[in-house]
């Protein structure tokens, strides 16, 4: 019996039993769709969290003033600051060969105004390397000019919303923006959105670090961002930073270093495990669908007893009968899985419409494995009824009528 004959033969049988076909299709489709939707949601959550973190930069060490006694990011803020971090501290960190970029951060808020418009804005004092470290991009103009960290200049780069609110339709590049009591020439507008040190990037103004220190009248840095060349070199660089700071701060270890990647890796692991767990739960519904396939196939075998006897009389071997019934089960499984695929992807699109921030498209591995699991379910749960059909006594099968 050729494959095309086999398919046509099974297809005719499937079409003839509409109700049972519909039931099996729905059961499998729900199983497959739920795997696709749930992994989509899990992946969406993972991508969302990772996206938030990596917008902060990669291979990043964050140096904060003050020693946290208990460790962890939160206690940092309660730790007493013993010595300020300075721009000279920042410059000294650049000496290690594994340090790729450095950006000091001075942080404050000031009134920014242009002509009649003004608003309060967070001001970040930093260096030219901030752009690369944070993976920002520019909509217009250029970023802070490279040069010595200690060099002041009256230029600024502004976030998108600042540009819209203060300059409206006017091109801000080249205009003089008043920040506090000083004037800064706007040299660029940031294109990026996202957050940095919990601020909306669209709402910030960036000026050279020294200018910010002058503006806020403080020599202290809020923190220093250190980008290492590789992830593996982070530990070495961490030690180097601690030693350097110790020697610069009279032997006292009064800084805290947070590694972004360690945190990121942990979240990645947790969320991946979560996705696997929920897709595992969804896979259980496919097993239920498998049992339904088995049930319905058994009913079919008893309904088609006469046919089985006849096929044997016409020269079908036990093996052929088994293949015929397996084909039935697998065709049903494939059709159900295909339906589930569309349902699942449709469901994901629908959820994406409701929550546009969530990129919940199902990963390829989940779509492929949902499909394969469905077909395997058909094979496994179709096997027993098919064997039963093959072992029917043809004589009894024929008088069954």
């Amino acid at each position: 019996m050729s494959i095309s004959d086999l398919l046509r033969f099974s297809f005719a049988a499937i079409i003839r039993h509409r109700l049972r076909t519909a039931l099996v299709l729905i059961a499998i489709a729900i199983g497959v769709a739920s795997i696709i939707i749930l992994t989509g949601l899990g992946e969406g959550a993972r991508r969302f969290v990772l996206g938030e973190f990596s917008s902060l930069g990669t291979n990043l060490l964050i140096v904060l003033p003050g020693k946290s006694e208990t460790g962890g990011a939160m206690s940092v803020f309660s730790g007493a600051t013993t010595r300020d971090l300075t721009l000279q501290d920042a410059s000294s960190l650049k000496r290690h060969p594994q340090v790729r970029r450095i950006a000091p951060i001075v942080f404050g808020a000031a009134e920014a105004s242009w002509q009649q418009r003004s608003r309060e804005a967070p001001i970040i004092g930093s260096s030219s390397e901030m752009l690369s470290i944070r993976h920002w991009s520019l909509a217009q103009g250029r970023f802070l000019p490279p040069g010595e960290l200690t060099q002041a200049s009256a230029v600024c780069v502004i976030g998108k919303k600042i540009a819209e609110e203060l300059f409206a339709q006017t091109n801000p590049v080249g205009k003089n923006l008043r920040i506090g009591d000083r004037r800064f020439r706007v040299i660029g507008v940031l294109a990026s959105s996202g957050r940095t040190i919990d601020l909306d990037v669209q709402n910030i103004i960036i000026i050279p670090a020294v200018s910010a220190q002058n503006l806020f009248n403080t020599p202290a840095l809020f923190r220093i961002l250190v980008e290492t060349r590789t992830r593996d070199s982070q530990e070495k660089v961490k030690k180097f930073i601690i030693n350097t700071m110790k020697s610069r701060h009279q032997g006292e270890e009064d800084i805290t270093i947070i590694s972004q990647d360690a945190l990121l890796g942990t979240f990645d692991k947790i969320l991946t495990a979560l996705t696997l767990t929920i897709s595992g739960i969804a896979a259980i519904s496919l097993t239920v669908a498998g049992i339904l396939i088995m049930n319905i196939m058994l009913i079919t075998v008893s309904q088609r007893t006469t046919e089985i006897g006849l096929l044997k009389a016409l020269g079908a071997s036990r093996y052929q009968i088994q293949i015929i019934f397996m084909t039935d089960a697998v065709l049903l499984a494939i059709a159900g899985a295909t339906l589930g695929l569309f349902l699942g992807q449709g469901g994901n699109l629908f959820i994406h419409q409701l929550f546009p921030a969530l990129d919940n498209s199902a990963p390829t591995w989940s779509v492929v494995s949902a499909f394969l699991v469905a077909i395997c379910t058909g094979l496994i749960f179709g096997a027993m009824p098919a064997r039963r059909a093959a072992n029917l006594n043809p004589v009894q099968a024929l008088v069954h009528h």
Partner: protein
Amino acid sequence: MIELLDINRIFQVGDQQVHALKDINLTIQNGEYLSIMGPSGSGKSTLLNIIGMLDQPDSGTYHLEGKEVTHLSDNEKSIIRSSQIGFIFQFFHLLPRLTAAENIALPMMLAGISPSERQKRTNKILALLDLTERAHHKPEQLSGGQRQRVAIGRATIMQPKVLLADEPTGNLDRHAGHEVIKILEQLNQQDITLIVVTHDPELGERAHRKIKFVDGAITIDTGTQS
């Protein structure tokens, strides 16, 4: 040639043993026209099933065309059923979802014959059986006589040496039954061995060799009348 030697078949019904066939010895030459008659439960259908290799004797040997077939594997038996034996049933046993032509072609499909060859042979048989216009009708759209003709087409499409008919007219009116018998006899004249199991004395009498069955044993065998 069919040679049955000391064939016994015992069924277990509840806690009772039913001896359906008792030491049957029977030789049937190629091209014979044989009727098997007897009351219900006399074992005549069981004999037919054993000849058709749908059933397995508990003891005894069966030679078909000089070859021992009693202990062949399932696969080997199915090949012999496919190529050498044609079955005709009282209830036709057509597949309701297939058309007349597809029903006739079913044994060829199972045997893996190419679609073009199937088409050719089916058309020939349909014409022979006067069913060409009915080729694409489903069984439910056919009369009893037409259904049995489709079944005959299906039984002969593989050009078997032996035709086994179990009450072929049992479900037909007189006219249709007569037509069916005529077709079967024509096939017999083309040297196909025809074995008919029937209750109907008129049909039984037409055969050249008549066998009577009572309680699982042959009581009368007229032998081949030349």
